[in-house]
């Protein structure tokens, strides 16, 4: 066998360990860590700035490497910003954002996946047309619909409410399309077997397709979650008081009309990233091999 020198037989290789991890693994992890550091390094600016209580210092350091360094870090900005009442209660805004997030994601996953399932596996006519229409509607930029949407919402009296911030984004062409692409990959045999068993579409969707699509659902949860969390233009238009204002709009108040309050803005931005990071970490555990491969074999 030529090229035998390149084949490394598994069983024979002796693995040395360090801290219980194979050396090769540690090397791999270090390489990845370096890549990660390089890619994520710009975010250090954010972190460093949030630890500088003097906003003039932040301004003076901008644009040079001094922006990456803080000589005496302090948590003062966080203390100032994370309040539950007062005129700019970031704590309250955070809670509002979380309420909107949970309801939108839960509702969004259900509504979008149901629709995607019907578009992928349903038998009613016109599905292709509906799908094309949906993808087409995804093109419409938000900036061009906010004003008509705002007048619609005002007419119905829903300004400054949670409903107005949740309802328009529950269903989205993007996520229906995404789930559609996943659903059509599920083998025909699985669907046929369920139909032969006499299951109704709702049952097939709920008991068969959903459990197999955890990675896709996790994707929708994460992406919809982040999109909802970072929504800015619409909540800016629709909220008037602190009642249902999310943190993305709350931070806008730190961008004053003449100058920016970087100390508070940066700290609030870091606070804003924390919950959604945890949200992401929780859902990305669903990125494990789906049931499909085992189902096909069986």
């Amino acid at each position, binding site marked *: 066998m030529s090229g035998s020198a390149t084949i490394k037989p598994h069983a024979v290789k002796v693995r040395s360990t360090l801290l219980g991890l194979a050396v090769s693994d540690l090397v791999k992890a270090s390489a990845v860590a370096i890549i990660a550091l390089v890619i994520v390094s710009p975010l250090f600016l954010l972190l460093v700035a949030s630890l500088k209580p003097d906003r*003039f210092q932040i301004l003076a350091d901008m644009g040079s490497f001094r922006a990456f360094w803080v000589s005496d870090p302090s948590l003062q900005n966080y203390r100032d910003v994370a309040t539950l009442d007062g*005129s700019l209660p970031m704590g309250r805004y955070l809670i509002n954002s979380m309420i909107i997030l949970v309801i939108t994601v839960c509702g969004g996953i259900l509504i979008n996946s149901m629709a995607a399932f019907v578009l992928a596996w349903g038998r009613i006519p016109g599905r292709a047309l509906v799908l094309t229409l949906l993808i087409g509607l995804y093109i419409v930029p938000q900036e061009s619909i906010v004003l008509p949407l705002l007048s619609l919402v005002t007419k119905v009296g829903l300004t400054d409410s949670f409903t107005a911030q949740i309802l328009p984004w529950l269903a989205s062409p993007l996520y229906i399309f995404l789930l559609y692409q996943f659903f059509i990959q599920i083998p025909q045999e699985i669907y046929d077997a369920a139909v032969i068993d006499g299951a109704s579409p709702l049952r097939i969707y709920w008991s068969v397709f959903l459990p197999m699509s955890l990675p896709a659902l996790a994707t929708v949860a994460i992406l919809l979650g982040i999109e909802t969390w970072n929504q800015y233009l619409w909540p800016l238009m629709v909220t008037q008081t602190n009642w249902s204002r999310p943190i993305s709009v709350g931070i*806008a108040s*730190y961008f004053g009309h003449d100058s920016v309050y970087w100390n508070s803005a940066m700290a609030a931005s870091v606070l804003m990233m924390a919950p959604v990071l945890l949200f992401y970490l929780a859902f990305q555990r669903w990125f494990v091999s789906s049931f499909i491969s085992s189902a096909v074999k069986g």
Partner: protein
Amino acid sequence: MLSLGKRFLRQIGTASLASLGLLSATVMTEAGTLKVMFQGDPYEIQAISDAAKRFEQANSGTTVELINTPHDAYNEKFGSMASSNTLPDVIELDAPFLANYVWSGYLQPISGLVDQSLINDMTKSNVSQGTYPPDGKLYAIGLTDSTVVLYGSRKQLEALKIRIPKSVDDAWTKDEFEGALKALASSGVKWPIDLFRAYGTKTEWIPYAYEPILISMGCDLIDRAAWKATGALDSQACVDATTMMQSWAKQGWVVPQSAGQNQFYTEGRPAALAWGGHWFYAEASAKMGEDLVAMPLPKFGAKSASPNGTWIYAISKTSSDPALAGKFLSFMLTDKAYRESYKAHTGFPGLKSFAAESPTYADKGAMATAFEQASKSAVPRPPHPGYPTITLAFQVAMTNIFDGADPKTELAKAAKKIDDDIADNSGYAPFGK
């Protein structure tokens, strides 16, 4: 069965009592509810909220509903409220937009509603930014105003034997100014002047900060008698003014747009002079302390000119209780704690009494010359309903001119755009009559 019925009746009973209570509550609050739409920096939001609470305490039965609208989408919010007829009683607005809002029929004069003593207390500059030319009435008032000054480093200027003006009458002439730029450039300074191009290419800063140069050299964005732009904006004087500014950029004297906003006071001080707003004083003095000097804007032509204008308060025409709205404004603008907030953030005074309380702007203060400009050289941006078009057209023209385009062509293009818009709105009658 019977118990069910009883429970049902009891439920109806409680429901009706509750709704009655709700009804009476709504009736009560409608009697004295004031809706106030505003924007502001964090300290301003705090100041207004506290003042509103104190007003409620002083006037029992009154509720002040505050609508905090970040200035990012202010006009859009205003537009949607206007079209759905839900405009609040008190509206804060950016001064240049006053004419547009009054012409569109959304505001009513505040004289008679706000205390006369307060109106008399306004500086000349403040009055000019709140006045609507066709009827000469006052539609808005504010505690603060704004201005732009020329900042420099005392040590640096003295080292180069450049004279430091002591008052507006004493300001540099065009030759002195350009001479100073040249001297600074030869002395090895990276950029003699920072015009804060870093604020952006589509920003209100451009007409705000640069129109005074045009006015000082004897022309304007638009003729304020006939309300025509062609003949004013593309006149020889304006072409000369913008050519002069272009030459500064061509010679590399101006801080480029992508070099940031802190070049005047950051480590090494790459920029020697700064054409900055009054708000720039706080961050510059934090780094430069006593070395910072605020000089009046140069007198490029026959007269001095400086900008003004900030967010001011008006009362909507559809307000259900204008008297109450006026009362609120009078209360807030004289409220001690409210004023203290602004003083602590070096708010530029728009009321003479407030100026007297602000050491920074008083006679020996660091920004005394800045305040002098308010009474001696402040000119508001054109108070015309077509201002949104005027400002955008000038922003585009100025940006292109800095980039090297021919000033005459650019200004003519801008003037045409402005006049086209005026024609599109039937001359914005009664303007132009």
